[in-house]
């Protein structure tokens, strides 16, 4: 069923290829809706997480549901599997992806009014392929498969920005592509290195067993138990995190890469790959450009889902497989996280382009995710996870809010707006919810993640002295955030309406309200019921990861 969820958009894309042009957007919307509904069937499994955590989350990391596993590519020395499954880490993100994709697809329905409105068929095909790529990234448990989906998602995004974007779309698209590619290269290096080192680990363990028992067959048998692969290493992400032989080999000081200790260098390779995606300072500069140029629905996807892949990558790859790496880099990561929070907020404050402001606010918000994972504690992980999901709701909403006014005014200059609360009261209400959620107002979704991360950072002071000043600095971020968001609200929504003879500002349409309403409801529900909406589904898995790192 998970595979159906992943590939349903691809099937929809194939349908779009042959459908009459007028039907394309209907098919696309139906496909994304069907995918969303299908993904909801994953929910019942995780609902039992409170009453019976063992059944849902297992007793250790690696308890997956909806697992589908088949050999995909076998070569002389390696096997690549089609291996997908969801646990508490990926499940909420899968739901987020299908939901945001659906709403973004609906947001694309005014395609005919776009400046670049050619190629509607190609647009929706790429859009659906993108969704398949994103779902694949969250579901893949084989590193190679993960990498493939990672790249699959990259290409449609490149074209979606590069073809249907704004005036500087080429620059933005290429920048996005190259940044991500640079990260991919590092990830690929890590992939290959990890493969060979896991092979080394298993063969060493087999040799040891053979020597100990004196029989080669016993050694081979132990190889089966240990690695399931006799002739080489593994791409299995769960295996790499839970197989004792591999874990010990990866963490051992004797294992090196280019003469450097293996765990820290691999950790940082993967980390940079994901930090670019997150994006964190100083790898963030692609984001404002990409957002400013991308069409509204693509911005929604970009902010809502793509950025989460960075955070997901930390939690799926970096920490479970290289916990000692996390330990070694904690200070650096936390510093980068805090800089992202403050620097992102300050940059946002200086913007006059509405969309660029929201883009920089993403940098600031995702800084909390980085800080949360960096401190390696339960509060931090929970906070980071919640922040990802909360941002996955609030930032697409904010981008859509920007898109709504852009469609009417055809500019995004903050200083040329005003009084939209008067001319568009319903839209104004939605905007208030969206931006206050982004501001981190308690009762809305943005608060929980920030609060958990901040409090967790204070607690981390017991381990690392540097965590206290970090917490203080990160807490100062709440002032800056309030500053730029309220200033924006003031400039756009309050004050006199600007009398613009060319463009009147009619109230939001039913479609626009239909897209905003689910976001607004989720902003509130997630803020009021954080357990029922997020924590119940992911805490179990997060605790397992923490237990493996020995920092429960």
């Amino acid at each position, binding site marked *: 069923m998970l595979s159906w969820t992943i590939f349903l958009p691809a099937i929809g894309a194939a349908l779009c290829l042959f459908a009459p042009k007028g039907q394309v957007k209907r098919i696309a919307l139906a496909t994304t809706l069907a995918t969303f509904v299908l993904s909801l069937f994953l929910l019942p499994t995780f609902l039992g997480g409170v009453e019976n955590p063992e059944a849902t989350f297992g007793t250790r990391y690696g308890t997956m549901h909806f697992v589908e596993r088949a050999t995909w590519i076998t070569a002389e*020395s390696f096997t690549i599997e089609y291996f997908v499954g969801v646990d508490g880490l990926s499940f909420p993100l899968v739901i987020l992806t299908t939901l945001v994709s659906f709403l973004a697809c609906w947001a694309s329905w005014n395609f005919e009014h776009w400046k*670049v409105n050619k190629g509607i068929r190609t647009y929706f095909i790429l859009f659906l392929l993108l969704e398949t790529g994103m779902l694949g990234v969250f579901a893949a448990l084989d590193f190679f498969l993960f990498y493939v989906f990672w790249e699959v998602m990259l290409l449609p995004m490149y074209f979606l920005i*590069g*073809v249907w974007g704004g005036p500087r*779309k*080429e620059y933005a698209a*290429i920048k996005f*592509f190259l940044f991500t*590619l*640079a990260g991919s*290269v590092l990830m*690929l290096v890590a992939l*290959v*290195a990890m493969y*060979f080192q896991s*092979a080394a680990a298993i063969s060493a363990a087999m040799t040891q067993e053979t020597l100990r028992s004196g029989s080669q067959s016993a050694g081979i048998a132990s190889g089966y138990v240990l690695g399931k692969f006799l002739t080489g290493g593994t791409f299995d992400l769960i295996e790499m995190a839970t197989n004792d032989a591999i874990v010990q080999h990866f963490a051992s000081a004797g294992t090196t890469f280019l003469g450097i200790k293996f765990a820290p260098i691999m950790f940082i390779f993967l980390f940079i790959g994901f930090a670019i995606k997150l994006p964190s300072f*100083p790898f963030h500069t692609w984001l*404002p450009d990409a957002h400013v140029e991308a069409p509204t629905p693509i911005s929604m996807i970009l902010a809502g889902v793509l950025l989460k892949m960075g955070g997901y990558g930390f939690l799926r790859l970096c920490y479970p497989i290289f916990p000692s790496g996390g330990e070694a880099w904690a200070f650096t990561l936390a510093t980068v996280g805090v800089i992202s929070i403050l620097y992102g907020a*300050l*940059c*946002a*404050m*200086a913007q006059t382009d509405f969309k660029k402001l929201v883009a920089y606010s993403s940098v600031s918000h995702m800084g909390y995710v980085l800080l949360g994972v960096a401190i390696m504690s*339960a*509060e931090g992980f929970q906070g980071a996870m919640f922040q990802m999901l909360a941002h996955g709701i609030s930032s697409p909403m904010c981008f859509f809010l920007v898109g709504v006014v852009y469609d009417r005014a055809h500019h995004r200059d903050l200083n040329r707006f005003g*009084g939209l609360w*008067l*001319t568009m*009261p319903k839209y104004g209400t939605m905007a208030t919810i969206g931006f*206050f959620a982004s501001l981190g*107002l*308690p*009762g809305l979704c943005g*608060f929980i993640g920030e*609060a*958990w991360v*901040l*409090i967790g950072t*204070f*607690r981390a002071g017991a381990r690392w*002295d540097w965590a206290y*000043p970090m917490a*203080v600095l990160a807490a*100062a971020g*709440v*002032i*800056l955030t*309030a*500053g730029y968001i*309220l200033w924006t609200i*003031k400039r756009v*929504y*309050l*004050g*006199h*309406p600007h009398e613009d003879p060319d463009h009147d500002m009619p109230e939001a349409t039913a479609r626009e309200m239909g897209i905003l309403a689910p976001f607004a409801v989720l902003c509130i529900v997630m803020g009021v019921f*954080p*357990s029922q909406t997020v924590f119940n589904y992911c*805490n179990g898995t997060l605790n397992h990861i923490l237990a493996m790192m020995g920092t*429960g």
Partner: protein
Amino acid sequence: MEPVLAKLLAASLITPFLTFWILVLWGPKIGKPRAGWVGLIGGMGVPLALSAVVFVTWFFTSPEQRAELTAAAQHSQVLWAQLGRFDVTFGVKLDSLTVAMHFMVCFIAFWIFFFSIGYMSGHADCVHHQSKYWRFFAYLALFAFSMLGLVISPSLLFLFIFWELVGLCSYLLIGFYFETDYAPPAAMKAFITNRVGDFGFIIGLGIVFTFLGTLDLEGAAAAFKTQLATSTGLFAPQVTVPIFGWTFSGMTLATLMGVGLFCGAMGKSAQFPLHVWLPDAMAGPTPVSALIHAATMVAAGVYLVARVFRLLTPDAQMFIAVIGCITLTFMALIAIVQTDIKKCLAYSTLSQLGYMIFGMGVGAWTAALFHLITHAFFKAMLFLGSGQVIEGCHHVQDMRRMGGLRTKMPVTCWTFFVGVLAIAGFGIPGVHLGHWKFGLGGFFSKDEILAVAYDRAYNWGRFGAPSEGHAEAGANGEARPANKEKHADGGTRSAESAAGGRGVRLAAFSSGSSEEVQHSAAGTPAQKAAGSEKDAHGAEGGEHHASEKDGVASGIQALPKWMFWFAILTAYVTPFYMFRAWWLTFMGHPRDHHVHEHAHESKMMTTPLVVLAVGTLVSSYFLFRPMLSHAAEAAADAPLVVAVDGEAHEPAAALLSLDHTPERDPHKKLVGLVGFAFLIGFAVSWAIYRNGLDVASRIKAIPPFNLLHTLLERKYYFDELYDFLWVRGCRAVAAVCAFIDTWVIDLVYNLLSGVTERIAAFSGRVLDAQGVDGFVNGISETANDLAEVLRKPQTGGIRKYVLWSVGLATAAIAALIVVMRVNGG
């Protein structure tokens, strides 16, 4: 009946919340007059009914039953979320303080909602064909929900959550006239200034959670006490918290925690130096100013301090006292020169909030909260009175254009007068019938704060006995040697007054430099008599607690005397500026006939005025004071700081009671010092302002006064300073960051890509020419084909750019794989 009361309090949140959503979703359909009534009934009527039931029940519940109910409510909390490995629970904090505050908020809010219907009816609320009438009541309902939630919150986290929500309501309501030029900046200023305070609050929360291991108020207080006694956790010797070169540990860390939490209160209660937002907040509709920016929300800071009182240290408490003292004095002075009636009241509110915070700082826990409640009554009424004036005069707020309104608005005029008397501290000292004294609420509450301040400043030596016996119980282990002379003096005096009953306990500890004395004192018949005076409850734990409290007191410095005198000075300033406002508005001759002609009163608005005036006259002392006394028993049982009961009618175990010996009775002293301040203020303001501002303008032309006047009129230039320092400073830093982003970070990346392109072009040509590496070419071809798709929207240069970048990356990867094969395989 056990869980019922807590459930009723919890239920009081439901209808305001539902009302808010009903008004948000269907407000325009409900229409203009009806939306107001929906807001009144759903938003406050139902909660008031529930609250009244709780209040009355609680009033007639015995202390033992109350304790049981409190414990039951504490144990019936529900799990909300997990914070790390800790459970965060939500429930209801059911104690006397909650009940009193809840009822006060409901009662005052109900009448302000009522007033609002009248106030908004004559309002031109339709802008751009959008009626904002229903919005107003929706916001009020949301505020009711948030404020009541804040009052019943059992944990610091929920206090913080509702804290921010009331801040949001404040923001929305200050910015209610958002189409104007002045309201949006004022709203923004309020929210951001509060966030600055919340920054400190978050740090406080972080320290509480990190070291006390819980955010629950009771749990945190218990942990604090245990950790202090056992030198663990917060007070563990090995714990150090280095922040930017400062190292906090033990007592300094606890102080940082207390000050951090207090920062939140500084924001919300607009204490110096975060006071700047409150005067601007007057941009909101006047009922909002009455409800949020005078009676309830701004007092939340005081409520917070009361709630975290048990977590304070002597230094934190002194910090609170200093901040309160500065605020109460300097804000009162600004009020003298205000000509806008609402601004004048706003500065008066600041000053009175300063009194409350000062009260908390000097340990007058009960008195400060008592002042909070009396102030809420009379200040709400004063603001509503000003609202009636403003509405009646068609939105003229300038007192220079008023005058003579008593004929047009008699009810407003005389209720306002009652309010002015109350804030001025009107009372006839010495006239009393048992405990029933003659005076208005403000007189008693302020008198109590000042009495405690006096005791802390002048009588404190008797508590500060540096003896071995107390050093253990004493706060930080090292009891600060108090004034030796005072000590001796106090000792003898207390000994003298031993027979008086109340002095006995103090005698035991002030003169108790040796244990002998202590023992002998404890054994005297007088002591026993003192014990029997109290009710059964107090007698049991009373002595034990008292000894503990005296020990704590001995570790705390006396109050610097200037702080007491600042408060006394302000007690003279307050009546003056309040009577000034009254004279200018209602008395004298009409200065603007246009305004005067239109002036009128309306029933919807005068009814609440009368109700609140009656409330000011009678209710507060008898209803709330005993309940607060009872609340103090548990809520002020602090291990490090003392709460001093200014009246000590029902001495609670957790409080030190004032010495009522004839020659040192602070109340008697205060009669001489400020007992007739209200008369003097009345007379002086009559002399200057009875006929408008002519006399005043002559006075302010005289050299030293003109400079002073300018200084006060510009509010000590805080707005200018902050604008320069924070607003401009922040924007400058932001601009620098944006510059760095574009011209440093991005430049590096662009340079990098440029260089890569060159290298790629070079190596590509070489490889091409030689035709050695088919692999790379193959990839290039593929990329080329891909790029064909992009041909139309893209330029050739960029295509090449992609092509070579992809090629180079692929080559690098291929090389790496080969290297890895050799190394790893």
